[in-house]
């Protein structure tokens, strides 16, 4: 382990989320969970990552990209969940689908939003465009880009 990264916080995030999550602390940096054990003390990556973690911990804003659903089903394209602190709660959002969840922990907020994703997916599945309002048509199109229906 390295002193350059706030491992206590990292560990908490890792434990709070799904195995297959990819952690994204900045738009250009994606870090697999498996990479967490390969960051060496003083390396450039450790320093950059330490800075990003500090920023994320301060603002409470970061994103996770989910590559599979709790059922184990793989997504065609990762689902990006934005996380932020709102007062004493954690807010999770998938903006493009207008999904949101408030919970005490990130783990619970992510779990709820994935459940909402699945719920919405089931609602639009099997409906043709005449049975969907304007927004619902957009939701279906976006969901289809994540999941082969």
């Amino acid at each position: 382990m390295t002193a350059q990264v706030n491992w206590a916080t990292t560990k908490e995030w890792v434990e709070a989320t799904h195995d297959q999550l990819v952690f994204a602390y900045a738009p250009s940096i994606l870090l697999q969970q498996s990479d967490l054990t390969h960051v060496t003390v003083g390396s450039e990556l450790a320093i950059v990552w330490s800075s990003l973690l500090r920023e994320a911990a301060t603002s409470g804003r970061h994103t996770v990209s989910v590559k599979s659903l709790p059922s184990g089903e793989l997504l065609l394209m990762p689902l990006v969940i934005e996380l932020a602190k709102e007062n004493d709660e954690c807010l999770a959002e998938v903006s493009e689908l207008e999904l949101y969840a408030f919970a005490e922990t990130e783990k619970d907020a992510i779990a709820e939003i994935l459940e909402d994703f699945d719920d919405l997916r089931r609602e639009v599945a099997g409906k043709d465009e005449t049975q969907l309002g304007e927004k619902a048509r957009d939701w279906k199109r976006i969901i289809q880009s994540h999941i082969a229906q």
Partner: protein
Amino acid sequence: MLRDFREKDIRKAIIDKAKPRKISKNSPHWKGKIYVGEVFVAKVKIPNDHPRIMRSSKLRFIARDLQLTEDQFNAFVECRLSGTEYYGILNAKGTQGKPDSEGRA
């Protein structure tokens, strides 16, 4: 600007006026689906039947779910906007299903 409302009052307004057709009760919060005729147009999380005040940070999501502006949402909960008027707003927003190849909506 969104006003302060009790969770139970928002819940009542949603159930009485938006009349979600399908309500899922499995999650910590009920989730409803709103239909105009046979067309699925909106989804909404339904607050608990609790007297605590809901923060505006949460209210804005419910207003968005209902496809209402902040002023419309205030009126919706305060009984200045009826269920019929609410559905009128949904219809005006182009929530109808896309016409099929024969032009039937």
